[in-house]
């Protein structure tokens, strides 16, 4: 048994993608149309932390930035194995792009103090950028490995991971402190126990606002003010529906017609 590691897991609350409605006119997600859940990739990140905790011992801190309602996701994280949870919520954080989000999260991690490993999901299902993890590492000035799909070994001061980048695999040893982002292949998140879930409803969630780490941060880099990204246009591709056509009449002619259609659709040459 090695000394307990300090692991920080970054979580985002997202709408349940199976239920959420999309406004095709504005290109916006109607967040009120579905219940909010932990971003599925972040569940893999949390599960990875819990597996490390089970193997070598660790204290897991879950951090999320979002509205007050994101507390529910942090409670869920506690039910699933996090030891404590911090919610970053403040109007000044709102409207953040990935840069401002990463900056805020990095400040919060600094505020937590000592940590060995930060684990994030590879991306969120509502933003899909995969930028926040690596950007947080840059702000913290620590090394990172993205797209980790296997954790091979954990030691007191380092971790050995397999990362998939495009067509290639990399086996990388990362010295602590460091950050990894994990894919959905890294594990299968477990269901929480009913008892833990009931208990987590009463768990205390630490809430921080912009003033909580004013000593470590420059407020100008928070939220919309700190976000250089602007959305110029949202384009929603039309979903192609399956089409059916019945070819009738002379068998040979029908066969030729089918061949032509398939050729035009580039199914055959």
């Amino acid at each position, binding site marked *: 048994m090695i000394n307990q590691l300090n692991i920080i897991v970054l979580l985002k609350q997202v709408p*349940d993608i*199976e239920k959420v409605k999309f406004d095709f006119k504005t290109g916006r997600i109607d967040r009120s149309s579905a*219940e909010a859940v932990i971003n599925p990739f972040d569940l893999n990140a949390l599960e990875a932390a819990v597996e490390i905790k089970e193997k070598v011992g660790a204290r897991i801190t879950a951090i999320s930035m979002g509205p007050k309602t994101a507390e*529910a996701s942090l409670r869920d994280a506690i039910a699933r194995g996090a030891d404590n949870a911090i919610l970053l919520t403040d109007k000044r954080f709102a409207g953040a792009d990935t840069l401002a989000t990463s900056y805020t999260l990095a400040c919060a991690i600094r505020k937590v103090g000592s940590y060995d490993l930060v684990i994030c999901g590879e991306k969120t299902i509502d933003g899909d950028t995969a930028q926040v993890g690596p950007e947080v590492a840059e702000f913290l000035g620590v090394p990172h490995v993205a797209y980790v799909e296997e954790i091979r070994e954990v030691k007191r001061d380092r971790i050995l991971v397999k990362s998939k980048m495009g067509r290639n695999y990399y086996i990388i040893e990362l010295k602590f402190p460091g950050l990894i982002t994990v894919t959905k292949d890294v594990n299968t998140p477990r269901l929480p126990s009913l008892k833990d879930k*009931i208990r987590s409803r009463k768990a205390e969630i630490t809430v921080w606002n912009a003033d909580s780490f004013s000593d470590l941060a420059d407020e100008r880099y928070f939220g919309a003010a700190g976000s250089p990204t602007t959305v110029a246009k949202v384009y929603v591709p039309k979903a192609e529906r399956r089409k059916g056509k019945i070819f009738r009449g002379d068998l040979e002619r029908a066969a030729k017609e089918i061949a032509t259609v398939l050729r035009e659709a580039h199914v055959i040459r």
Partner: protein
Amino acid sequence: MRISIKEVTEGLKSIVGEEWVITERESMEGYLRDETPDAIRPKAAENLVLVKPSSTREVSEILRYANEMLVPVFPVGGRTGLVGGCVPIEDGIILSLERMNKIEVDVENLMAVAEAGATLGDLIKAADEAGLFFPLHPGDEGAQIGGLIATNAGGVRAVKYGVMRNYVKGVEIILPTGEILNLGGMLIKNNMGYDLMHLIIGSEGTLCVVTKAILKLYPRSRYSVTLILPFNKREDAIRAVPEILRSGVTPLAIEYVGLKELNAAANHLGEEWPVQSGDAQLLIILSGSSEDEVYSACERISEVAEKNNAGEALIAETHDEQERILKVRSNIYTALKRDMVDILDATVPMSRLLDLMIKIDELSKRYGAYLPVYGHAGDGNLHVHVMKENGEVPSYADDLKGEIYEATVSLGGVITGEHGVGRLRIKEFHRFLSEKERNLMREIKRVFDPNNILNPGKIFP
């Protein structure tokens, strides 16, 4: 039949148009069977024609024509039944209403008007889009409204909302004479004489053809969770069920399933079942209008579970996690189907469920047979499977089934709680129902369908 199937084909073409009358065997293959295991599924007849009308008027004309020519008509829905109920066992017409699949949701009245050919999946989606909920879930969402009504379908969510009968508020039906009747309506109260509508529900296509229905919808529950409760002893699991219901919690579903069968189903889907301790497991679906309401129910269930020696219970909260659990549960049948002879749906008063299971254990030992058992513990409905041995139907299969039925009836139960009589249960139906009741049913059949053209050979021999 007064005329040849060729002539029937021509007659049908003049009603619905050439395109919707199918005579090639290979094009109607899927309409010759239902989901009954191969070993016992009745064989389809040789001379058949498949017709797909698009309107009530066309259905009416088809029936009038068939009645005049004395041609048997086999109405089919999604063909998901398990007792050969829709298999066309005599030469005649297969009637599929799949083109009649419109659904209109009446939000004000919390009801939907659905054509008989709409699928359960379509209805669930339409209700959801209107912010409402159609809870019935017999397993296969390809089932059609007409079939759900004809068979009075049940399924896992009957504990809270009941079976199909509890949803149907009105039906449009066509009699064999071609006459169109509208029974019931968007009414909660209706006492106009004998309730013909409820006579039609569960009549298995033998009295009339249902073309449209008014169905009750519910407000979408804002919050739901699925629990998995593992028990080492089956008695503990079964004993916990009435205790949960007595505690004031009414779950959407309470399912009893063995770990072995759950693993078989998960394996069949390429998944892993999340709870590997506890041979006997209860799956409980809870829904409510708020998180607090659902969690207070969870707490009560947790207490009952603990009192009854349950192991560590797990909870699924996200849509995705809950769907995965329900999918495994719904696929036990598909996983076992290949090696299955028959799936029974014996139903006893909830308090006698354990007695029935003990009896089935005895039979399993005496016959040396693997009898997978699972079912809707919240409503006393148990699915016992008779399995093949070395790929063959064992010689004792009928005797064994007979004994299971006898045990069920002696415990105050019925041989079928969900699947109906269809073709397969005719013998037992006549064995376990009094002559007087059977005669009354026969008379009713004669009044509706004097020429016996509608789904002949079902319910009655």
